[in-house]
């Protein structure tokens, strides 16, 4: 039986950051990955915000395997025939320290795991953690599917992703509720670098991030379109319970998005390079598990730390940050020789002080708002019709005035003033 100082399960961004911090302090840490290589099981929309890496790997941008630096950020509201787009461009995000980047997870996660290895972590790929080892109520290691596969350690870090069977086995999650999850499905389409530069109006390594509302039919959710170097990632995020109830297939909803008159000219002719899917823990703090117990911490998606708040869609950064904080707390606990939940309390203290829990708390009502029926089915029509009429020249009729247009379109969409005010308040409180 092998013994180490810490076992980190899952070599995604959270696990690799945790392992790097623990290894740097001189402790022996095993980093388990069930895929043949890190990132091979991981899929996301396509944008990572790596500034958390400043602390661990200064000038990470000189070596991180990114596709393009996001310098153009659009939010689109669609109806079947209309599109209203808020489009922001800044060349400031095209130079160090950058903001967001498109990247393929098999590239990015493998790079980050390689950095953890260079820091001294022992990476074991093709190894699935199959369960927890306990001594009384303490967690003291994991079983794996390798021959002689028990691995003992005074602390286990569950970085095992959205399904986190380890955190569930430890009893840290409330009963699972399918309505807290969305399903992300995407197509990676090859278009060629020149075609992407031309269609999206970018040059060199500049990239585009487009978030889309109102295009997922009867299923509450959203769409996305990101530019990689010579491919685009296009897909939809769908409320799992709605998808089941509406009897609509995920790939049909991608096809629906791709055929929209505002999207089709951007993606047509693209050759499918890969089709992929993944679950997203969408409900934020309301679905977060207990984050620490005797001998175990929970990090990243396993702790539902994905932020799905409409205009902010982040996850990898939350995983990296929580991984680093877990690593720091474990180093403290190993030094003090106390791996109980009390000894590991530095983890939650760090999360509380940082964006990880502060952003989630501040935006706690926003994910629900974004997936609400009004935002999904009534506001897109109200917004698009208002803007269309604002710019329509109805001569010989005089201009009706924006207030009258908006009131009429609000009524036509069946939106009550009271509900609009309440939603605006929820949204503004999240923004403020």
């Amino acid at each position, binding site marked *: 039986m092998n013994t180490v100082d810490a076992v980190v399960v899952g070599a995604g961004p959270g696990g690799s950051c945790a392992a790097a911090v623990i290894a740097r302090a001189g402790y022996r840490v095993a980093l388990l990955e*069930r*895929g*043949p290589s890190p*990132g*091979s*099981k*991981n*899929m*996301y929309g396509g944008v990572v915000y790596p500034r958390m890496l400043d602390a661990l790997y200064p000038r990470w941008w000189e070596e991180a395997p990114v596709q393009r630096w996001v310098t153009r950020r659009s939010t689109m509201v669609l109806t079947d025939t209309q599109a209203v787009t808020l489009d922001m461009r800044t060349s400031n995000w095209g130079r160090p320290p950058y903001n967001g980047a498109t990247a*393929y*997870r*098999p590239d990015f996660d493998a790079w980050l795991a390689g950095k953890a290895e260079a820091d001294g972590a022992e990476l074991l*790929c*093709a*190894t*699935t953690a199959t369960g927890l080892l306990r001594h009384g109520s303490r967690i003291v290691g994991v079983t*794996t*599917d*390798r021959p002689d596969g028990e691995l003992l350690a005074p602390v286990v870090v569950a970085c095992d992703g*959205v*399904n986190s*069977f380890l955190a569930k086995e430890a009893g840290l999650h409330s009963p*699972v509720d*399918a309505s807290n*999850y969305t*399903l992300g*499905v*995407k197509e*990676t389409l090859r278009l060629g670098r020149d075609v992407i530069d031309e269609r999206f109006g970018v040059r060199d390594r500049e990239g585009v991030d487009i978030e889309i509302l109102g295009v997922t039919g009867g299923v509450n959710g959203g769409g996305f379109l990101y530019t*990689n170097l010579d*491919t685009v990632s296009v897909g939809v995020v769908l409320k*799992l*319970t709605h*998808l*089941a*109830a*509406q*009897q*609509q*297939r*995920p*790939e049909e909803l991608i*096809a629906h998005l*791709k*055929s929209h008159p505002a999207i*089709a000219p951007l993606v*047509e*002719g693209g*050759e*499918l*390079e*890969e*089709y*992929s*899917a*993944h*679950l997203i823990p969408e409900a934020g703090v309301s679905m977060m598990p207990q984050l620490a117990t005797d001998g175990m911490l929970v990090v990243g998606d396993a702790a539902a730390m994905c932020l799905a708040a409409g205009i902010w869609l982040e996850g990898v950064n939350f995983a990296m940050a929580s991984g680093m904080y877990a690593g720091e707390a474990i180093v403290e606990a190993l030094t003090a020789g106390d791996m109980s939940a009390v000894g590991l309390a530095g983890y939650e203290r760090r999360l509380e002080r940082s964006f990880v829990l502060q952003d989630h708390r501040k935006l706690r009502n926003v994910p629900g708002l974004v997936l609400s029926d009004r935002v999904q089915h009534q506001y897109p029509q109200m917004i698009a019709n208002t803007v269309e009429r604002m710019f329509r020249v109805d001569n010989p009729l005089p201009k009706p005035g924006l207030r009258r247009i908006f009131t009429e379109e609000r009524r036509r969409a069946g939106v009550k003033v009271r509900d609009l005010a309440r939603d605006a308040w929820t949204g503004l409180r999240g923004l403020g």
Partner: protein
Amino acid sequence: MPDPDASRPERWPDISFEDRMATTVFDVHERAHIDVDSSVCDGCSTQRCVVVCPANLFVPTAEGGIVFNYEQCFECGACYLVCNEEGAITWTYPEGGHGVVFRRS
């Protein structure tokens, strides 16, 4: 006048579901990591797994049951989550090193 659309690329190179799935790499292990208790499925009126599985691995039978395939599984977990009430799907990770191998995700 020449057709201005003649030189445009075909909008959707029409792709069958089989060809769509062939774009993703799977290193299949002989052990099935999904198990379905079809006796439960026979009485299931919703069969939500059939709709939500992005890989379309669950197929209803004429007798009201479900046949499934584990080989092209994305390992997302949507099936067992929507099935929770019925409890017919047992879902674990495949053997280490096996299953889906994303490259462009």
